[in-house]
């Protein structure tokens, strides 16, 4: 990997990564972020993550990226899952069990309908 030596080089990395982070101009149509802090994992985030990956695979969805993040603060509602479809405000869901995760994939990812009863927050944290 090339070593960073100047502001310009740092800016280049920033610009490239920012596009991915904000879901702009990427080949994917969206991303799913599973919070994997200790609080999330203790509440079952690993099972949730597995369920999401499996449900996406079962439905042959290959244009969603699935990534992890840390605790966003509202540990009470862990496991939390953020669904960020390109061009839309991100939606954060709480108490996402594997079963609810499959529902989110079916309703939100496949049918474009927000699962309102699980929603904790709309918009950026």
């Amino acid at each position, binding site marked *: *990997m090339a*070593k*960073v*030596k*100047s*502001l310009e080089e*740092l800016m280049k*990395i*920033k610009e*490239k*990564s*920012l596009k*991915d*982070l*904000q879901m702009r101009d990427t080949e994917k149509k969206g991303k799913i*972020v599973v*919070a*994997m*802090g*200790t*609080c999330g*994992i203790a509440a079952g985030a690993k099972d949730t993550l597995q369920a999401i990956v499996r449900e996406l695979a079962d439905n042959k969805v290959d244009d969603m990226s699935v*990534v*992890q*993040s*840390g*605790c*966003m*603060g*509202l*540990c*009470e509602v862990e496991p*939390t899952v953020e669904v960020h479809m390109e*061009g*839309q*405000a991100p*939606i954060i869901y*709480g108490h996402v069990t594997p079963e609810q995760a499959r529902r989110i994939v079916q309703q939100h990812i496949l049918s*474009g*309908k*927000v699962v*309102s*009863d699980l*929603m*904790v*927050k*709309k*918009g*950026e*944290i």
Partner: protein
Amino acid sequence: MSATDKTSIASEAPAPRVEARAATNTILLCAGGACISSGEESCLQALRATLEKYALQDVVKVVETGCMGMCDAGPLMILYPEGVFYQKLKPSDMEQIVSEHLLKGRIVESKLFVDPSTKVKITSAYDDHPFFTKQVKIATRNMGVIDPMSIEEYIARDGYFALRKVLQEMTPEQVIDTLKKSGLRGRGGAGFPTGLKWELTRKVPGKEKFVLCNADEGDPGAFMDRSILEGDPHSVLEAMAIAGYAVGAQKGYVYIRAEYPLAIERLTEGIKQAKEYGLFGENIMGSGFSFDLEIRMGAGAFVCGEETALIESVEGKRGQPRVKPPFPAQKGVWNKPTLNNNVETYANIPPIILNGPEWFTRIGTEKSKGTKVFCLAGKIKNTGLVEVPIGITLREVVYDIGGGIPNNKSFKAVQTGGPSGGCIPAEHLDMPIDYETLKTIGTMMGSGGMVFMDEDTCMVDVAKFFLQFSVDESCGKCTPCREGNRVMYEILERITNGEGEEGDIERLETLGQSIIDSSLCGLGQTSPQPVLSTIRFFRDEYEAHIREKRCPAKVCRSLIRYHIDESKCVGCTACARVCPVAAISGSLRKPHRIDPEICTRCGSCIEVCRFGAISKITPI
């Protein structure tokens, strides 16, 4: 606020975002697929017609938006500037909304959106959920936003730009000056000015110096440092390199407890990635400055959070405090000048460098600048981690951010500062939370743990819990802490067992003060605080235990007994079946009885009784 704005940290300070839209009224009507199918278009027509009827079409802007998310409650509308959220609209509702809300400024209660989880009516836009809006995220700016295992995402959020600025544009003196001007104080609890600490370390002569990060988070109910390291490890790494440059150190240690494996994993990966980019290690960004870091795992002794004990432990010795002076800035790790800061303190530094000290001083109070991360634990609805401007009132933290006390119970007190702090009772709910104010009522800011207690909590029992923690964790080096706390604990145990005597409270006060005056380290000097502070605010509870052998909160097992009200008991046998010690007797459809001699006061019977026939009685 657009996504791009969000990445510049300056815009995350409380921004007048509602006012910006306030020039005229704006109505956002959800035109997502679901709302269209539930009648959005006819609502829009009716709205336009009604606006024209009242000649408002030129001052009220109507915008159709994409899906707002709560499709079940559609058609939906948000009315700005207030951000009032209306749901399940019909064309016939438009007349009322225009004439009542727009013309008279009265909210149409019957159409307000109801939060599905809290059943609370929302009078502002959904992303203004109070849990999030009252927060100002500086130290936790990236937590839950970026992938902690991706340095690129950290860079995307201005990561390592502060290190670049420091190495290529600033002298060490300028860095220290920036920190001093920012007013940043140590977030580990004591609140020592960070810039001054850096300056003291820089001024001590010596070729070899060290930078430490204290991640030995030990207070019960505190998990700020773990969450920051798990969610955003690079913010701490970047700040430690900046610290190394400023004080003249090439080597650092992160002292972290082995119970935090995930944080250790992410830190280790972070160091590796940063080195690959040349942002860590040898000759960082070609500046000639080198900085490397080692992770030292602690075995979980609370005392190792005390800086001199931490230094002993880093050196591989048993964690016991040293006598100060000399301070770590003079003689720290391997007797070399050492800078030691807490995780959260470090996480604040990159944004301060990038945005300037003036930006930071705009947040907080006169003497305490910036924000503080708190962990909400115990009897509070929204358990979790929040970052709020210093000076916010406790009431806002409890009721707005924390969502209040669960099960319709009332707030009794909150313990801040863990076993070194004290409690804040309900009468001080409107007190601003800052270093100085908390000290005036005998507690402290501490590292940020907040343990909430409701009316069912016995304050003598709470004091006993925290004191037991200090007894267990005392390193044993000095007598006041090792023996004094044990004696205090024995007195508390007597009191909660119903064997308290007149004079016990005074004995606790005298002994506590002696421990404060004569202990060696900061932890010993603060260990009696939970007892002294509960005596200060809840002396009547101590007196009830001692004089009346009564536990007002009905917690202390020796002072309560369980009783079945025979007029309410239907003899369903549920309690008898669940009792683990067979203390309950009685036959089917006949009132049952509890034998207090056998009963262990476990409370299982109360939980299963569906008739409210079982209660706790104190005194026995």
